[in-house]
């Protein structure tokens, strides 16, 4: 009969009206500044650079300025300039470091490709999203100093992923050390055969 469909509709909306007071399945609103949802582990926003040591962020950047991310970045928002000199990295190996590392976050589209292509696990995705500012040039172009965040922070925001990355790095380092040890032993053997005093390499 004419009107039954309309009455059905009215019943549904009335149900939803009542449901909005007691049913969390229906009332899904989160009142943002006061309440916040828990960001999932995989949440990504803008990239940041990992430093090994919080006290000396610029000295212990994992980034070695290989510029792969700069090349792969789809919107071309990363700018890297290699350093002229080399600094030892966490394992003591001499590496280049980025003299300039900038990310234009107003261009960045949070695609995470820089993270995926980085062979050194030096760049990771941040979770900070309340970054609205009034100055697009000064505040959204992040330089090296503002991008660098310690590894502990990475553990804080992506615990599972960070643990996996650290495990892998540790294993790699161990393997490298062992290799170095073997090499050193061979060298030592060679040195024992022909004793020459060599100054130890400067390791900090």
């Amino acid at each position, binding site marked *: 009969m*004419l009107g039954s469909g*309309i009455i059905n509709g009215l019943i*549904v*909306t009335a149900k*939803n009206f009542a449901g909005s007071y007691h049913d969390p399945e229906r*009332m*899904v*609103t989160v*009142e943002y500044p006061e309440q916040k949802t828990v960001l999932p582990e995989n949440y990504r926003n803008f990239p940041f650079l990992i430093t090994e040591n919080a006290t000396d962020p610029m000295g212990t950047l994992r980034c070695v300025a290989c510029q792969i991310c700069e090349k792969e970045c789809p919107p071309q928002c990363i700018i890297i300039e290699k350093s002229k000199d080399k600094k030892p990295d966490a394992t003591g190996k001499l590496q280049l470091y980025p003299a300039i590392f900038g990310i234009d976050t107003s261009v960045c589209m949070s695609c995470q490709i820089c993270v995926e292509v980085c062979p050194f696990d030096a760049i990771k995705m941040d979770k900070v999203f309340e970054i609205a500012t009034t100055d697009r040039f000064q505040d959204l172009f992040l330089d090296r100093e503002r991008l660098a965040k310690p590894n502990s922070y990475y553990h804080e925001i992506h615990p599972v992923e960070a643990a996996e990355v650290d495990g892998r790095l540790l294993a790699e380092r161990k393997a490298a050390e062992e290799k170095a040890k073997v090499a050193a032993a061979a060298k030592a053997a060679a040195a024992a055969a022909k004793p020459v005093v060599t100054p130890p390499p400067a390791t900090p």
Partner: protein
Amino acid sequence: MSAAALTDSFLERAPLALRDWVVNFLPAPLQWLGHHLITIIAVLAVFGTFFAFTTIAERKLLARLQNRLGPNRSGLPWIKGLTLFGLSQPFADAIKTLTKEDIVPAAADKCLHFLAPVIVVAFSLMTFAVLPFGRHLIPVELDAALLYFFAAGAATELAIFMAGWSSRNKYSLLAAMRALAQLISYELPLILSVVPIVLVTSTLSTQNIVLAQGGWTFGFLPHWFVFTPWGFPAFIIFLVAALAESNRSPFDLPEAESELIAGHLTEYSGFKYALFFMAEYFGLTALSGLGVTLFLGGWQAPIAALQFIPSYAWFMLKLIGMLVFFIWIRGTLLRLRIDQLTRLAWQFLVPLALLNVGNAAFWILTASWSGPLQLIRWAISLAIIVIPFILLGRTLTAGYAPRTYRYAP
């Protein structure tokens, strides 16, 4: 409590007493003026506030229907953290619209463009003059109150057309044409739905119509016209026509947001826009008030035992009920198309309303039937309206039905 005591109870007379007390301060030759001015100010103040809270109620109710929270942020200025459930939202809105720039299109007819919102508010407010808000509260007691109400109500159509025409905007023009077609089409069922009441009560005075609905059977069945076999269909027709007359969903064609941007309001901004908005709500409130007066017993209490509550409170409660129903409808239904809209009026509502007039005539003729005849009277009266409703409904929805679907083999 006796009826006389009720009539003169303090609460019932309080508004009048207050008015007389104020008027007495004036010199005697000016007292008649003060009397009327105070009435006007009271109606404006009460219904202005009522309008403000209708807007917030509509937004909150719609939000809840849609599983949202609705506006709940605005509090008081300079007090942080006090949000008052967002109840001060209408005042914030008012300040916003008042401080907005008033933009008039360069090609617009400036005079008409300015006049339209003024006229629409003026005429929609004029309709309040004849509504009996309480036992003693009626701004003007007119003998031909109903005629006056419809005459004043119909003038708003002109204003809407003026708005659409003067804006020099194609959307506005389309909306103006739609508004004219719609409002004129629905004047007819609106007035025809009221005719049975005039027939039965043989009066055009709203106060007398309310008085005719007084009394209860067994003390709890009120003698409201909506509970009669001719009154209920008339009430439904009245509701549909009232929705259409006040441009509310599902008949919001002149403003059809998804088709015509904002219809006749496209080129209005700031205060003028607010005036249209206000007029729309005033119109809706007035029509709801008329519906309450004509069908829902006006200021009469639903149960005899509840008569101690003052009559104007009952009126307002019923009015709020009507408005909530309108909001509920708005939150559920979708919009008709213009041809379907006029078809609904001319092929469905008008014939039904005409039949209903005959139904009321039958009711009057058989007023003397009692006992078992009373049941027969009800049955015949119901048949007069239900059978045409089903038949007309079928022709109206002919060809439209939910379908079943096949699947690829």
